[in-house]
């Protein structure tokens, strides 16, 4: 038990070093790295899809397949909870 | 002023996360986790993502707290 604690401490120090190393060249807040795609959506969303909320137009239209995956994940979670807690589910 | 509020919210996130791991009473830990979720939702709002803020406030502070409470009914209230 006591021997493992040294490894935990070493791992923590390595993780801290990596995080602070990555913090040295962090991108400034609020400036997107590659704004071409953002500009495309902001210009086209209102006239193409007739929607004011660009975030919703991306979530449900341009990237609707991702939302289908999200809905499927929720459906699977509900199914597993119902299968786990169903009445008489684990009678021996 | 905005920087002060932002820093206070970030500090509160870390403090409530620490208390969620530190409390022996699991009910207090769950409430501390709910406060952490609320602060994270405030942080999302400050970072101008109101969509994620609503989702975090509904799921994190509302539903997951209720689910943890239901789960706490079936086990011992304090941690070993």
């Amino acid at each position: 038990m006591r021997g493992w604690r040294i490894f935990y401490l070493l791992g923590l120090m390595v993780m801290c070093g990596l995080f602070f190393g990555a913090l040295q060249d962090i991108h400034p807040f609020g400036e997107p790295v590659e704004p071409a795609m953002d500009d495309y959506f902001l210009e086209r969303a209102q006239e193409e899809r007739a929607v004011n909320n660009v975030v919703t137009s991306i979530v449900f239209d341009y990237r609707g397949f991702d939302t289908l995956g999200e809905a499927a994940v929720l459906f699977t979670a509900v199914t597993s909870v119902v299968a786990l807690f169903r009445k008489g589910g684990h009678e021996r | 002023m905005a920087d002060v509020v932002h820093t206070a919210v970030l500090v509160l996130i870390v403090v409530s996360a620490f208390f969620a791991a530190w409390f022996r009473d699991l009910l207090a830990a769950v409430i501390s986790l709910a406060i952490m979720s609320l602060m994270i939702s405030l942080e999302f709002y400050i970072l101008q993502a109101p969509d994620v803020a609503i989702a975090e406030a509904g799921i994190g502070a509302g539903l997951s707290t209720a689910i943890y409470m239901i789960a706490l009914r079936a086990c011992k209230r304090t941690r070993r």
Partner: protein
Amino acid sequence: MNPLSLIVRTVCNVFAWFMVIFGAYIIVHGHLSPGGGFQGGAVVATFIAFLLVAHGGKRLLGWVKEGLFSAVESTGLLIFLGAGLFGISTTFFYNFLAKKGGLFGSVVPLGSNTGVLNSSGTIALMNLAVGLEVVAGLSLIIVYMFKGIRLELDREEESHDR
């Protein structure tokens, strides 16, 4: 869970409905304001958790019907998939209702404006569908978890008798 005091139950009876109204507002205005089906559904599902905490599990289990929730959840997912499949002549998830007139097809003016409620084609329809699915699904999780926990507690008491 046992019911809480009369004060908590009265406050729940008065104010729980505002949570439903707010969640429905978030779902219906998903294409105009921040939020959408998932966020509004989570807010509405908090209503069931509120009822469970305030009125106790025995009365809640008398009110809710799990079969209805299950059917609503499946219906929401099927409407979502169907709205994606109907645009298959162009691409999967193509917005085939936008700017066609009718219930969902108004044209919005360009630039910043206050928004038109019956615009945005399948986006509003998918918001409603995902909202139905999330409301029913999260309520179903809470109700079934409570039923399972109650089953567990009952069996524990039985085993103590032996």
